[in-house]
């Protein structure tokens, strides 16, 4: 549908728009272009800083590189990578982040699906109450659990000789717990749209609950699972607080902890900080661009984290 230029903004679906070139439209495009540039500048800045020789940070702003592009170099990256995988280095932190984020994502998606299935298709009393409790937990700050869990881990460690506090596993367990409410919420809402008749037909055919879950419900739920997985991945990847608490004295730290530790040092290490920041951003950025639609859907679905 084409609307006369003087009239309302109307979105695309299902009618098309036509744009007349009027002064107000030009101004709008210019203003929004300026906003877009403003929004890109910080990211571009940090990228360029990471590509400049480290001494130049003190002397001149990164924007001067526009006049002297030849100075750009991958030196900083080479330097950080040359440290290899020694604990506390950027590569080791990268693997640590992966080692925490991936298991958490898998566990949250699987357990959320199972729990949501039970909430939607189960036939036991109290499902609504449990769901309301889950909704209540959505906004529960994880600060409420830090102290007791830290103590619990320490007690567990001393009594069993195992190593939970300060280990990746301890962090993983904690992250899963606080990812579950949102995951269950999302999957439950999605599963509610699946008709019960579908499962009835399966039950009459003799399928057990596990088969129904595996063969019917989960495959249908893949779009929602994708959204959840991506959302959860980025959430845990970017976390700092839980990592600080549970890995504070550990030799293996996450990328966010790595960056934070250099921030506290003097600013003359900004070449490390910027390069590390770029490395920490790359993977979420790839995930974002590859699965944008799913990420957006996840964000829309929750809007509570």
């Amino acid at each position, binding site marked *: *549908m*084409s*609307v006369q230029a*003087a009239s309302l903004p109307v979105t695309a679906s299902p009618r098309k728009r036509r744009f007349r070139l009027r002064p107000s439209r030009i101004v709008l495009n210019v203003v929004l272009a300026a906003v877009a540039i403003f929004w890109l500048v910080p990211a571009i800045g940090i990228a360029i800083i990471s590509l400049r020789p480290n001494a130049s940070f003190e002397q001149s702003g990164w924007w001067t590189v526009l006049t002297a592009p030849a100075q750009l170099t991958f030196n900083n990256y080479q330097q950080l990578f040359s440290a290899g995988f020694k604990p506390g280095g950027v590569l080791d932190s990268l693997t640590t982040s992966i080692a925490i984020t991936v298991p958490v994502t898998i566990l949250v998606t699987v357990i959320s699906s199972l729990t949501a299935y039970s909430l939607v298709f189960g036939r036991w009393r109290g499902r609504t109450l449990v769901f309301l409790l889950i909704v209540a937990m959505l906004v529960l700050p994880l600060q409420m659990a830090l102290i007791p869990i830290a103590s619990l881990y320490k007690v567990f460690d001393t009594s069993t000789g195992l190593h939970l506090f300060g280990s990746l596993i301890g962090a993983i367990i904690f992250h899963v717990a606080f990812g579950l409410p949102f995951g269950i919420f999302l999957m439950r809402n999605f599963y509610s749209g699946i008709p019960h008749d579908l499962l009835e037909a399966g039950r009459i055919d003799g399928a057990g609950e596990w088969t129904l879950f595996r063969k019917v419900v989960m495959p249908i739920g893949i779009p929602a699972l994708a959204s959840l997985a991506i959302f959860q991945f980025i959430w845990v990847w970017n976390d700092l607080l839980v990592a600080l608490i549970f890995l504070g004295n550990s030799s293996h730290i996450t990328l966010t902890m790595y960056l934070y530790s250099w921030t506290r040092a003097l600013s003359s290490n900004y070449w490390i900080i910027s390069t590390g920041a770029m490395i920490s951003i790359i993977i979420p950025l790839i995930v974002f661009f590859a699965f944008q639609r799913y990420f957006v859907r996840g964000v829309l679905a929750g809007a509570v984290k």
Partner: protein
Amino acid sequence: MAGVVLEDLTKRYDGGALAVNKLNLDIRDGEFVCLVGPSGCGKTTALRMIAGLEEITSGEVRIGDRVVNNLPPRDRDIAMVFQSYALYPHMSVRDNMAFGLELRKTPKAQIDKAVVDAARILDLERFLDRKPGQLSGGQRQRVALGRAIVREPAVFLMDEPLSNLDAKLRVQTRAEIARMHTRLEATMIYVTHDQVEAMTMGDRIAVINEGVLQQAGTPKDLYELPQNRFVAGFIGSPSMNFIDLKVSQDGGVVRLTGEGAEMRPDDTESALLRDLGLDSVTVGFRPEHLDLATLSGPGLSVTVVVDVVEFLGNDELIHGSSEGRDVVAIINADNTLKVGQSVTLAAPSRRLHLFNPATGLRVAEDGASTTGGVANRVTTG
């Protein structure tokens, strides 16, 4: 109040598709005109172009004496009632109706009076302080009507306002709109896909198909003198039957046969067929004009095998087939026909409509097929 003139109104979309193709229509001041046609025929697009919600590709829309092509909707002095009511959900009924006048900075006393008057006409007084969410569908549609009335526009535009209502409400609201029209003596342009609605409500009807005006005229004109096959089949429920007959000349006598039917044309028809040299003709005849009696004069008779008999009370609706062709007839229920029975049905000449099979146009009495299709300011009746 004002009349609306559409001149060669055309809408072309970016892909090249023509939604409305050179629509010409002259709507007189105070007239109730229905734009009717199947889904996607362009009637709503045409209405929206009149309203200013769609850009006009070419042609003109004149409201009163003004060409309104480049005017935004609010300067066209129109009011519109939408299929989905389009009420402001966060405003009370009162505020919904008052909104347009408020925007025009009408004095409050005047607004109040107008709103209360409209509410009285539409029996909405009890709901003035409720929000649309608290009303039923029929009540909401009345609020939409009230919103339009209050504006006292030159033209009322209505886009399938009854489609979202259940059957009973539809009949009620139809009457309300008709009453509104009489009372306000307003120019109304009403879009619907339901030809029964169009026939019952319109002073005149414009039948549109695939963006092209098929015929515009009074309900009677469209019923008795459809100008092309589309209009003939569209107007009337159940729809007109069509049979293709071959023309043969036997001595000086013209006869038409085919598909289990046989037609003896009268003198005028014979002359026409001879002059035009057509060797086949599509004959249309309405179910209600078929009889079990044998023909006494010129006319059509067709032998059918009865498939389905539907009892309607006073009449029976018969579905039969004649050499593969379906025929529908309405005959008096006393005849008690049975399934499988073979009967001969007949319709007299004056109830027959002849169409050129190639063009679909009516074979008319002025010696040539009418230039139907894009009728230039057809204002019959």
